[in-house]
């Protein structure tokens, strides 16, 4: 995988929040890359900083939360260095985002058609009529029945699933190269989840865009992702292509996560093993490796050394001294 197909490269991203006088790190030196036409998933428990990472890419943070370091290169340009006006031109046009809670993500007092046309007119020279017509086509394209009439309705006339389709239509309206989807289906019921995920995947392939999928559901990762980054306590603790990760997880946390997931293929009715303890509070993060208090393989060094993310093979990197040492010996 040479560098030419890299669309988005995030290096040592740090995002902090000002709490009681000192800066607390929510995202701690996160790095990953997005390749053209591929889906990268960021997975982790809630509070691991994955949503914060996504919001940092598009600089959608409000005080007291802010991006404190690192670079986000998109087609060679560092987004963090852009002015607010330049960033506005990127948002929605080049990098679009779909959010988690469809119920609250649409403006309740504006018509659906208008809210999609609004995105088009923000980036394209279009008359209102043209934008509205395009909006209806987009609605039809994302599977909203009777799009012509429904465009004139208001958000509260739509179900959760339908609203997510509207948000997706709005996101893809300007043909973005990158779509960030922050837990797009978590708030939906299971039957609708699959449809939305398929829709996202089809649209991504159609536009040859790359998808950054934020989720805590390993099932979704398995179904959708090409590459995966596992986050814990604000850091990426393991990164690999999806097959390597599922079949040869190196980091104890990743293995624990996989153990929690129901594996239909496996006929043994093994009991699910919950991970003891809970993710650390960002204000009182443990020294050394943040996972060591809950880590079954922890060794004394884990408490001292803060493990960097190191490549252990062409497709896999891990931030765990025990794993790194094991690889070195083998």
């Amino acid at each position, binding site marked *: 995988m040479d560098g030419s197909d890299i669309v988005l490269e995030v290096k040592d991203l740090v995002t902090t929040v000002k709490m009681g006088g000192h800066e607390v790190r929510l995202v701690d030196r996160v790095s990953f890359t997005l390749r053209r036409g591929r889906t990268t998933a960021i997975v982790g428990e809630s509070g691991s900083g994955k949503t914060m990472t996504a919001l940092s890419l598009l600089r959608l943070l409000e005080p007291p939360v802010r991006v404190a370091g690192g670079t986000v290169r998109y087609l060679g340009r560092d987004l963090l260095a852009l002015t607010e006006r330049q960033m506005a031109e990127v948002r929605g046009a080049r990098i679009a985002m779909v959010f988690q809670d469809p119920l609250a993500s649409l403006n309740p007092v*504006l018509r659906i058609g*208008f809210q999609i046309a*609004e995105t088009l007119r923000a980036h394209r020279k279009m008359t*209102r009529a043209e934008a509205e017509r395009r909006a209806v086509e987009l609605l039809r394209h994302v599977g909203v029945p009777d799009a012509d009439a429904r465009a004139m309705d208001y958000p509260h006339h739509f179900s959760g699933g339908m609203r997510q389709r509207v948000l997706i239509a709005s996101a893809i309206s300007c043909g973005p190269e990158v779509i960030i989807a922050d837990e797009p289906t978590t708030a939906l019921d299971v039957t609708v989840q699959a449809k939305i995920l398929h829709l996202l995947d089809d649209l991504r392939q159609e536009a040859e865009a790359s998808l950054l999928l934020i989720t805590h559901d390993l099932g979704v990762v398995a179904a959708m992702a090409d590459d995966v980054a596992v986050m814990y306590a604000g850091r990426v603790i393991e990164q690999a292509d999806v097959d390597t990760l599922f079949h040869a997880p190196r980091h104890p946390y990743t293995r624990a996560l996989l153990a929690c997931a129901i594996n239909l293929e496996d006929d043994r009715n093994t009991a699910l093993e919950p991970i003891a303890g809970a993710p650390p509070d960002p204000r009182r993060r443990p020294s050394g490796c943040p996972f060591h208090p809950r880590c079954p393989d922890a060794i004394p060094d884990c408490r001292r050394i803060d493990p960097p993310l190191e490549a252990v093979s062409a497709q896999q990197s891990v931030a765990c001294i025990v794993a790194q040492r094991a690889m070195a010996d083998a």
Partner: protein
Amino acid sequence: MGHRMAVPLLIRVAIGAALAIIQPTATPQAQAAGTLIWGMPSETDTMDPHATGGWTTYQITYQIFEGLAKEDLTKGDVPTPPLVPGLAASWEISPDGLQYTFKLRPGVTFHDGTPFDAAAVKFNFERFWDKSSPNYYPKAASFVVAYAKWIKGMEVLDPMTVRVILTAPNYEWLRQGLQSYGQPLMVSPAAVKAYGNEGIALHPIGTGPFRFVERQQGVRTVLERNPDYWGRKAQLDRVIFRPLQDPATRVNALSNGEVQMISTPPWDEIQGLVDDGFKLSTNPNVPYINYLYLNMKQDVFKDVRVRRAVNMAIDREGIAREIYRKTGRPEFGLLSPGTDAYDPGFRSYKYDPDAAKKLFAEAGYPNGFKVVFEIPQVGTGELVESWIQRDLKKVGIDVELRKFEWVTYMGRWAGGMGQDIGMNEIGWGMSTPAWINIVARCDTMAPDGQNSGYYCNKEVDALLSQALTTRDPAAAKALYQKANRIIMDDAAYVPIVDDLQPIMLSPKVHGFVNPPEDWFDLSTVSVD
């Protein structure tokens, strides 16, 4: 089809407009030549002289209407306003005092051009007196009752002569027709026929030195000079009467040149205004005594020693000096100033709290008693009422002040004090000594008169009745003063202070006369 937002536009417009207005225009209002603007303490009620009772209203109607006889209010240094011919050039009173023959003034017309003659006089008398006449107006009759109840008959001798026959001799009868509560002034019959009894109040047509222009209720009432007036013509082009209830606003309007004259200025602001160059005008004989009634039906006040003690316990001089300053004078009797019967030297009780305490003890109240003192919202004011409360507290009398809104108070005062009420107060008087009848006779006890404290002394009634029928003013004066002495010996009333009717005038006002009456003749006034 996004929503066009007007909010930011609205903000810009509002701020822009507000700024545009505030640019300074330093000159005070341009002053129309010869216009007097008078800031008054309250709005006046209807301008029908037969059917109104307020002093402030007469301050306007006196300029528009005239009676057969008139009080000359152009003289300030006289004890009582001289009675002079008005629309009657002259009149004769029969020896038995029962017949008044009026020779009417020729060549006088009403403001609407209709002639003034005996027929007009007959129409007016029928309106407020003659129940059998179609022109009879019950409301007028009830207001003009003090004058009309003496009339037995009335006849037109010739187009310019009228005779009135009284039921009994009353040598204050003419003067009683020029007091508050219904004045029998001459209203244009044509106007009454045209606008009706109620409508006349909106179209007051009289014969006076000023004519009615317009009224905006609560804003202003405008009069203009009557060029065809039979007597000395007014100097002012126009007079504007403005109700300004709030005392601070009245003072500020005067300082800012928006009015040239205000009445009832707050006492404590007078010195400040005088220092700023404004003129203070008062009159020592204004018929206006502030006095208290004592409830004779209450056991405690049945004992004359208690009543006398109350009179001794209140420091009248202190109140006049400290609160009224140059606009009030201590009063010791119940004869109204502004009358020839009034004796400024009359004294009754000296301020002597110790003697008062002894008297209370003697009467059986060594450690005092509790008394309820009812007061109106716009009476003498809290300064005087709390002073009286403190003075009585010093001699052991615990006074509870109960304040009522004006109309409610009038009802309770006119209806007579209830059993639980010890004292109430009023500020009143008339430029006729006969006023004392209304407040101190047995047969004018409330609710059939204003004797709100139920004081009754047969000897006083006899003296007052005799005085009314005494033609010779000097003899009548002796009788009134004898009655006054008896009343004050009975100490049924507690006179406090005479209000000298302070008026503040802009230095631009000339020729204003503050007479011994509660209203003024504005025809002598000019404004440069």
